[in-house]
């Protein structure tokens, strides 16, 4: 644990430039991952009620005609 935290400190936190750029890169990644995660939770929670769950019925019907 101690060695890991020392490694973490030496690689990321020690230089402010590295620290700040890690924060911004992390924010970018977090933003996308968070959106995807919430979207996934939302579709799971509301399964069967959303438009994308019923869309296939009507698109297929159009193609069949």
């Amino acid at each position, binding site marked *: *644990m*101690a060695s890991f*935290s*020392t490694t*973490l*400190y030496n690689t*990321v*936190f020690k230089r402010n430039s590295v*620290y*700040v750029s*890690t*924060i*911004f890169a*992390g*924010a970018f990644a*977090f*933003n996308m991952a*968070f959106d995807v995660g919430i979207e996934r939770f939302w579709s799971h929670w509301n399964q069967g009620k959303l438009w994308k769950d019923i869309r296939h019925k009507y698109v297929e019907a159009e193609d069949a005609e």
Partner: protein
Amino acid sequence: MASFVAKKYQTLAPTVRTLASGVPVASGISFRHAPADDHSHGGPRHDTPALFAVRFSGSAKTSYVTSSPTGVFQQRFLHTSVARRDAPQVPDFSHYKAKDDSVNRATSYLMIGAMGVLTASAAKSTVTEFLSTMAASADVLALAKVEVGMSAIAEGTNVIIKWRGKPVFIRHRTPDEIEEARSIDWKTLRDPQSDEERAKNPEWLVMLGVCTHLGCVPIGESGDYGGWFCPCHGSHYDISGRIRKGPAPLNLEVPEYTIDEGEGKIIVG
């Protein structure tokens, strides 16, 4: 010097007392200037320089108590009338101290970094939301595209449609007109542009019907060059909508459009 003072253990007599009248008295301090003292700054006093109990190292401000209070320690209150003569006991803070300094340090940085990440993410979303209010609203965007059926436009005819409040000329050109538009030496024109640049499909010419001079709407199939003629100030455009004669500085503008051959539609916008 600091380390020297820090490690020195001495029993010090209290130097500041309080008289019964409430006036503090510092009898042990010499206010005289010490000429032999190299470290003096020329002031009247030559006290020990202020030594703060806390030293900062890195961001994880570990505090070090540099000197334990020795001798009689006098607590001073704002009201100085009450004298305290009891020696305080320093409580045991070891329970609150970090077990492992490197873990403690990494955790602190990590928490601050996490706060930065979340704040940046939230700020980005907020800024995006505010900026998106400046974008065109959905009802404007819905009007931004116009579809025109190509089958309804016979060869050699003009159609004028409205798009975003402006007229758009669509001409279904004959082979002769295409030949004429492509054969001339366009490099010598006022606004040199080849017909290939202006028409994606040579049969169809789509352009904004706004004269580049002062914004009048030119008349089709007229003018000296068989194209368009602006009645306001006499600008002549050829069959590719290029300015050939008159005050207009530029060719008629070509809007963004796509030709859907399968559906037989021209989509402007």
